[in-house]
């Protein structure tokens, strides 16, 4: 490929990835495009002029209600859930230095789901459901570390294996709880667990998740350089002046919080946390100063688009959005796997 490796490549730019201005413009297009699609598509497809009219509080009252009362909250919800999932995936991947880490795969989502389900079924108020989901996610993460440590040294591969086992165990608990739950709520719980934005428990939770997403990105952004160093392993990071203990703890807490919020809103949506960080890495590289905000924004856009499809493909029937992300995610993942020999993304 390169005839003279010390010739042209010597003068190539230092950073291989697209310039910042292009990234910002591209991301703005992705976000805007998905949001417009999210508002236009649905049970009733709205053409762009009608949508703009309704956004300006003109036109038929029904359409205004659909846009302002239904589609905009739904779009914001989808955006924040997708962003939270992608962010927690990116965080777990650097923590475990494992490209296959994802809250869904490791049982972090499962922990949140079990805790939320138990709280639903015992009739606790909404803020308890959310708080317990956070505790469930944090406990699942702590249990993951504890079980891995109990059986030997903490290595990325062993951590991943323990996580997979825990995820299947927790999913059995979820099935058990569903089997025990009373008939009238079963359908709702089932669809919520499949990953659907239609059963979000309420506006309080939805109103919280977008600020939390933004706060998490802003809080972690200054430490992006340290996360880059952490990619070389804990000991190297320590020798380069990083307080790995503090950093790891903070990132774990944020990952648990993001997962818990996403799960209480929308159940178990897989693949967003796995696929989006990899898409970002393929486009802009693994530098966390770019990865963290872009994972949040792209993840949000992906879920908005997927949710728009889920609402409109078989309208008026709504598909669980988790099914759609899986349909998108599986081929994308296989594509990544096929390219990984060249790009080295999944080699470990």
């Amino acid at each position, binding site marked *: 490929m390169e005839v003279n490796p010390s010739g042209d490549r010597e003068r190539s730019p230092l950073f291989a990835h697209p310039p910042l201005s292009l990234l910002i413009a591209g991301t703005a297009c992705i976000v805007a495009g998905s949001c417009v699609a999210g508002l236009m598509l649905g049970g009733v497809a709205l053409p762009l002029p009608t949508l703009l009219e309704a956004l300006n509080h003109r036109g038929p009252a029904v359409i205004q209600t659909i846009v302002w009362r239904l589609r905009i909250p739904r779009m914001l919800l989808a955006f924040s859930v997708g962003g939270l999932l992608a962010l927690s995936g990116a965080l777990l991947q650097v923590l475990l230095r494992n*490209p296959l880490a994802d809250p869904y795969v490791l049982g972090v989502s499962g922990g949140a789901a079990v805790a939320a389900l138990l709280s639903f079924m015992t009739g606790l108020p909404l803020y308890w459901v959310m708080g317990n989901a956070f505790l469930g996610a944090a406990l699942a993460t702590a249990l993951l570390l504890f079980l891995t440590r109990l059986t030997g040294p903490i290595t990325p591969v062993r951590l991943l294996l323990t996580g997979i086992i825990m995820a299947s165990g927790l999913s059995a608990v979820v099935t058990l709880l569903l089997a025990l739950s009373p008939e009238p709520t079963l359908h709702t719980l089932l669809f919520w667990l499949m990953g659907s934005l239609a059963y979000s428990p309420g506006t309080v939770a939805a109103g919280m998740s977008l600020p939390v997403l933004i706060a998490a990105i802003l809080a972690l952004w*200054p430490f992006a*350089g340290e996360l*880059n160093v952490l*990619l070389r392993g804990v000991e190297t990071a320590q*020798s*380069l002046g990083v307080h790995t203990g503090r950093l790891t703890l903070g990132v774990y807490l944020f990952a648990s919080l993001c997962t818990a919020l996403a799960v209480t809103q929308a159940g178990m949506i897989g693949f967003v946390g796995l696929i989006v960080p990899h898409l970002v890495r393929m486009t802009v590289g693994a530098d966390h100063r770019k990865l963290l905000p872009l994972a949040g924004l792209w993840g949000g856009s992906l879920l908005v688009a997927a949710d728009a499809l889920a609402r409109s493909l078989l309208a008026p029937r709504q598909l669980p959005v988790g099914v759609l992300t899986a349909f998108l995610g599986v081929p994308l993942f296989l594509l990544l796997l096929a390219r990984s020999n060249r790009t*080295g993304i999944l080699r470990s």
Partner: protein
Amino acid sequence: MNPVLEVAHLDLASPHDTICRNLSLRILPGEVWGILGPNGVGKSTLLKTLAGLSRRPPAASIRLDGQPLEHWPRRARARRMAILLQDNEPGLPLTVFETALLGRHPHLGLWGRPHYADLRRTLAALRITGLNGQRQNPSQALSAGESQRLAVALILAQDPALYLLDEPTTQLDLHYQRRLFEHFVALARWHHKAVVMALHDPTAAIRFTTRVLLLFGGGRILLGESRSCLTPDHLTTLYGTPVVAADSPRGLVFDVF
């Protein structure tokens, strides 16, 4: 001259053996140290202890620039001392340049935004290690030898006063073995850096180091000038296999095979 690193009365043990008892040494700027010993004798453990990376800090005093190691803020310490570890995780795909740039991390602010001088020093490190032509490639696409050179480039970019190197030339071809040894010797001689390296090749040790520490296992050590310590007798005891010395046009050569 004040020592860069000063160790007093260090007792160190691995889970199954004593590494050293009551070890005291002073590493001066401009010195190149070699640590030799058989596999598993504790060379890496000793280096990590000197770097302050061991989980249980030893009771003995290890002083960097006269200050106890544990009193140093992490980042300031990383500007004075670098360690090349043996097992480098490949990590997720940073490019070769971005990986070498991580060495500048202790010199950067919280945001980690590099300045022109940081980029220039990173580029220089990549040139020395012969990786400049591959600087845009993902770091995991490198071969084993190239990965080792990248790890060396990272600590060269770090630019400390003391280099602790755990088998710096492992996996390297002969050209790069010589090139990197000569570079570290030049850093010591002309820039008054101190270099401590764990080595397996006694010929390289006698050619490039000024002082050596031989770890025999069971807590027995030998410390001194390279020329007086690296004798066929000592090396035969050290490795448990006959080692003979021969003269070559470039100096003493140790023959094992």
